[in-house]
């Protein structure tokens, strides 16, 4: 008993008693993460004040020199950058919200016993497992394509005019593919939420004569809130970086170039202007930090909930 208490409080003879020994297991991961994600970022900040270009890509290599804040000044006169920012916002918000809504609805349908429940769940999660490149190719070549596309064949069968899906509606086409892929992920998270509901409370509510709708609104929805927030957080982290679908389906363009694709085109995707591309990237990081601050507040809310629980 006293030994247990000692272990709990004082940690007598505990190999992890000193704070540094406790930190030791954390260090490899921390050092690696700082080296691979933070150092390059600092180098990017330095690049953003220079006119650095890829030497192998120009006939007469310009000497790299310090240009002050010229790169940053140019950003605010760039309408294409503003357009890409706006596209990024629309693409991320639409894809996250739609896949959360569908994912929740599908999870509610799957969280009940019916014939073939496991098979339907298996069918639904499959798109999430596909390579984003393959998902984009399938939709581009088999669904949207004006040459081979199923959608046009269906329209023709119904006697309607064909639609140039990708070229006329690039954003909607890309969001469709993103929602198709991310709905299963959201569904998994929401299923996890539904299955972690304490069933005795639900049963008690049922015995007390609560209606299914009442149970859903009073008990299930509040319980799911944290899972919705988690889904939104993880979904936006990944979807805001969307690159593959854009590269495969449109290769950029007014309606579909998001921020990652824009910076890519400015730099290694053809522009090779690392200096100015870095400045764009830094501006994006500043915006990301603002968004992340809000998201991380959500996250800390999640962690505090846990402590109270």
């Amino acid at each position, binding site marked *: 008993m006293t030994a247990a208490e000692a272990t709990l409080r004082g940690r007598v003879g505990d190999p992890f008693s000193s704070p540094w020994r406790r930190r030791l297991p954390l260090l*490899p991961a921390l050092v690696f993460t700082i080296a691979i*994600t933070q150092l390059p970022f600092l180098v990017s900040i330095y690049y953003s004040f220079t006119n650095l270009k890829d030497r192998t890509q120009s006939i007469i290599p310009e000497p790299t020199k310090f240009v002050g804040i010229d790169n940053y000044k140019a950003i605010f006169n760039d309408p294409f950058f503003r357009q890409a920012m706006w596209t990024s916002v629309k693409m991320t918000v639409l894809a996250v919200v739609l896949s959360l809504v569908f994912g929740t609805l599908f999870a509610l349908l799957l969280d*009940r016993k019916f014939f073939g429940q496991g098979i339907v769940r298996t069918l639904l999660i499959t798109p999430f*497992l596909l390579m984003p490149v393959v998902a984009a190719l*399938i939709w581009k070549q088999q669904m949207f394509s004006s040459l*081979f596309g199923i959608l046009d064949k269906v329209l023709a069968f119904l006697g309607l005019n064909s639609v140039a899906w990708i070229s006329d509606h690039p954003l909607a086409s890309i969001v469709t593919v993103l929602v198709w892929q991310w709905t299963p992920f959201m569904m998994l998270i929401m299923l996890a939420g539904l299955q972690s509901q304490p069933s005795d409370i639900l049963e008690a509510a049922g*015995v007390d004569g609560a209606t299914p709708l009442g149970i859903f609104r009073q008990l299930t929805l509040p319980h799911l809130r*944290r899972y919705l927030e988690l889904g939104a957080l993880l979904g936006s982290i990944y979807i805001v970086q969307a690159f593959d679908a854009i590269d495969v389906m449109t290769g950029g363009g007014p309606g579909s170039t998001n921020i990652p694709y824009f910076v890519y085109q400015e730099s*290694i995707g053809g522009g090779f202007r690392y200096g100015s591309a870095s400045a764009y990237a830094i501006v994006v990081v500043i915006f*990301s930090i603002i968004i992340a601050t809000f998201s991380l507040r959500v996250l800390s809310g999640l962690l505090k909930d846990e402590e109270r629980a």
Partner: protein
Amino acid sequence: MIALGRRERRGSRLGVGESRATVIALGTVAWLIGMLWIFPVAWTVLTSFKTEQDASAQTFHNGLTVARYSDVSHSTTGTLSLSTAFTNSLVIVLVSTIIVMLLALPAAYALAIRPVPKWRDVLFFFISTKFLPIVASIFPIYVYAQKWNLIGTRTILIVLYIAMNLPLAIWMTRSFFSEVPRELIEAAEIDGTSLFNQLRSVILPIAAPGIAATALLCVIFAWNEYFYAIQLNFAGASTMPQWVIGNVSTRGNFLAKLSAASMIACLPVILAGWAAQKRMIRGLSMGALK
């Protein structure tokens, strides 16, 4: 009464007091949605067994054949062969995932079981690195990879995939570790169990399903990754996504071959995901928020 009768029926907790007709109707809706969602994949599977003429016309005159699968696996048109790309992907995915888990497990231990001071800030730091746009750090990585002759090697992708998956892996394993009852660890300590044995015989058995789910997500994200792969890793060290893209042709019909290539490239991850789906849901519910 009804509620008690349903107690045994797992996964139908919302269906308190529903009629049989409602259950069947909602089941049918679920089936229809499932078929709708799988349709593009199912169609691609069908296309992969067609002849090129049938595939392009979306018709079905010449029956089914596996010839496209043998076409793409023995293709000599591109510079990249299936076996090269597959080996590269396999090595990169396995090595990076193993290292991710080796880094994440001790870190999770230090965040959950014997939390360091300010562990919450440390966790935030790891997650916050996922908010940094990849593009913000890609040029320095590209420039230095060029300088150190790492472009077109497996090494550069392994390093970047570790960085890509580590925050998620730490976040998830930490939540699984925090599920391990403290009493068990303390009991093991009193018995004088060494740290390594505590991990092996107390912590890991309880957290194992979650750790497996975490590793699987890392494998999925690494196997499917495309941006770093095309930017930093071409020619001899190319991975499966590049091999699939290589089957898109500007000359002649390619739809059936592309479909076959897509299926070959996605099958390993699809099978793994199917096998582990229950575990993944359980993993997420066990500790996604803890």
